[in-house]
């Protein structure tokens, strides 16, 4: 069996097993075990020869992201094991939770790896399915509202994306790409120049709106902050870190196909507009948030907007900035959710006003969270600083009139995050909740948090040359 298939099927086999395990400690351990087995296999993908294996493909564009996703899957499984007792699941929900977690990990890996656009759609659909029920799992009215919004908006989104996929097939069929080849990204990319430009335009609009909804681009973002605020924190961490990447990668692949036809509409300006709208709206909205998890959900909207903006600008340098931004955001945002999850547990509330002065009372957590917020704000020396700097430099050089609103949006988000950093980590400590989390629960959040920070620092300062080469190669693929 080809390695990419194992990376998908192993978590799914794990999900089947976990659906049967009702003992909390055993289930948490099996969950970590499956993620720990998947991680080295996903790392091996980096060294695989690039090419197509049936419905999947390995190329420079997806291999680094699958490896990163497996790493985040592993740390999130560790985090989840430590927080399990605080979620207060009954046996049914416990089994559903662990199964959904692994189902989600396998599905987003498949979404990244699939060459066949139909399979990619199915994978994103499965990832949605797994996460919708998990957002609702606590069964509070707010959770139901969030899950309902998530389900309806993303249901419409993926329906539109499927229509786009069908139209894309029709375009390929007219130039002889019938059968399996009509949905293969590689062959579509190759024949795109001969396809009917009108059909490609139609397909692109539907794919952009469809997968753009899942990627949380404004004005299709409404579900994202709500979904991030509800459900188990581990699910928020992987939703923000992994699902958004998989969806944005789908948009990028669609853009690559349409961009290969000179007569079709230029896809760049669409992405630029949605990206800029996301950055600006996030910049404004961040100031009005009272809920910590919703705050960082909005921050994801802004970051996805930034990456979409970079892809809209196009060209190797801007694409590289976008890809680095996606990677950096995944690493740092999941770290933030670990920190916020533990803080919310310590303080007994996830409102920004109820969490304060963490550095004074819980130095390891407080400093970790402070650095993670600084990293997500794009302050040096972390990876997001490198990508944002590259993006601003590229924009200023090629379209200075776009650099102004982008810089304004960036400034607003950075300022809002620094303000949040001061409130959460510095300032006067707020009272702790009566029930303090145990040592294991604290370690299981703090250790992954610092690990992620180390990774973001390493990638920002001295990215291994082989990986840098791979990313540079990836940046040339979408054009």
């Amino acid at each position, binding site marked *: 069996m080809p390695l990419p298939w194992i990376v998908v099927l192993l978590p799914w086999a794990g999900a089947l097993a976990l659906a049967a395990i009702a003992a909390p400690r055993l289930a948490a351990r099996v969950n970590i075990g499956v993620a720990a087995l998947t991680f080295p296999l996903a790392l091996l993908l980096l060294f695989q020869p690039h090419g197509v294996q049936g419905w999947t493909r390995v190329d420079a564009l997806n291999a680094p992201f699958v490896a990163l996703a497996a790493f985040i899957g592993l740390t999130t499984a560790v985090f989840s094991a430590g927080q399990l007792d605080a979620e207060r699941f009954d046996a*049914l929900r416990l089994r559903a939770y662990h199964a959904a977690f692994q189902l989600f990990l396998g599905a987003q890996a498949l979404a990244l790896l699939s060459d*066949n656009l139909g*399979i990619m759609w199915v994978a994103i*659909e499965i990832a949605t*399915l797994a996460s919708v029920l998990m957002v609702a799992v606590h069964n509070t009215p707010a959770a139901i509202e969030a899950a309902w919004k998530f389900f309806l908006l993303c249901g419409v989104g993926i329906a539109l994306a499927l229509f786009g996929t069908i139209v894309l097939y029709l375009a390929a069929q007219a130039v002889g790409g019938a059968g399996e080849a*009509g949905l293969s990204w590689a062959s579509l990319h190759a024949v795109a120049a001969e396809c009917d430009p009108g059909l490609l335009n139609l397909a692109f609009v539907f794919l952009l709106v469809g997968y753009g909804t899942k990627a949380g681009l404004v004005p299709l973002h409404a579900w994202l902050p709500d979904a991030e605020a509800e459900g188990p924190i581990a699910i928020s961490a992987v939703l923000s870190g992994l699902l958004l990447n998989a969806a944005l990668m789908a948009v990028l692949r669609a853009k690559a196909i349409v961009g290969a036809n000179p007569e079709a509409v230029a896809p760049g300006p669409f992405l630029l507009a949605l990206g800029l709208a996301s950055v600006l709206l996030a910049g404004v909205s961040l100031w009005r948030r009272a809920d910590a998890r919703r705050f960082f959900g909005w921050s994801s909207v802004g970051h996805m907007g930034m990456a979409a903006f970079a892809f809209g600008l196009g060209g190797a340098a801007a694409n590289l900035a976008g890809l680095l931004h996606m990677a950096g955001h995944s690493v740092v945002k999941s770290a933030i959710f670990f920190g916020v999850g533990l803080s919310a547990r310590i303080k007994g509330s996830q409102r920004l006003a109820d969490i304060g002065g963490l550095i004074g009372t819980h130095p390891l957590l407080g400093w970790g969270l402070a650095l993670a917020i600084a990293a997500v704000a794009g302050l040096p020396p972390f990876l997001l600083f490198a990508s944002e700097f590259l993006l601003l430099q590229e924009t200023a050089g090629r379209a200075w009139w776009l650099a102004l609103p982008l810089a304004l949006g960036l400034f607003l988000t950075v300022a809002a995050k620094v303000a949040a950093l001061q409130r959460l980590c510095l300032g006067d400590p707020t009272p702790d909740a009566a029930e303090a989390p145990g040592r294991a629960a604290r370690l299981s959040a703090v250790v992954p948090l610092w690990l992620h920070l180390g990774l973001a620092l390493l990638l920002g300062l001295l990215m291994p040359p082989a990986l840098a080469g791979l990313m540079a190669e990836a940046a040339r693929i979408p054009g």
Partner: protein
Amino acid sequence: MTFGQLPYDVAHLLGGIMVLLSFVLLYQRRVSAVIGAFAVQGGVLAAAAAWQAWVQGSPHLYVTALIALVAKAALIPLALRALVRRLDLHRTVETALGIGPSLIAGVAVVALAILVVLPVTARVAIGTREEMALALSVILLGMLMMITRRNAILQVVGLMSMENGLILAAVGAAGMPLVVELSTAALVLLAFVVGGVFVFQIRERFDSVDIGFLEIHRGERR
């Protein structure tokens, strides 16, 4: 294959009936009538898929037809009816937009679908063109239904009606691979969510599946 030939005419007729049923979904006020119209649409979809299977000579489309018949025309409507009964939901529903304006918007949406699809599909096989226009109409009408209805069950019906349109498009695109897989995957999501409402007893938490009620829990107003 052109107008006046049986394969084309029947496919066109079935697609047209599906659009008509989408309009029925748009103006019905009673929940049970909406579910009934949805079941009929599922049955017509099954017939359309079976017809395409026969015309295109691709037997795997019979599987799609069978899935549509069993799930869309029978199981899901039955489950929805059970849900309405068991949760004792309101039997009649208010619309966010009046029936008249909804229907006018529906006509506009169908015109839009035709204006969008026909010009760009000049190189696509005749027959497929019209099928795509009808399918896009069903999709957009389903979306319109989700916008104009404030009741949760009816929004799910709207989403499933959108999905009917998708499957109509997929079976109409001759030789499209993975149609069975795609239609099954689309179904599974909806089935799981409807099932999730059952299993997790979501009803216990709020008194109405009216979305208007949920809105007070939205955002930061808690």
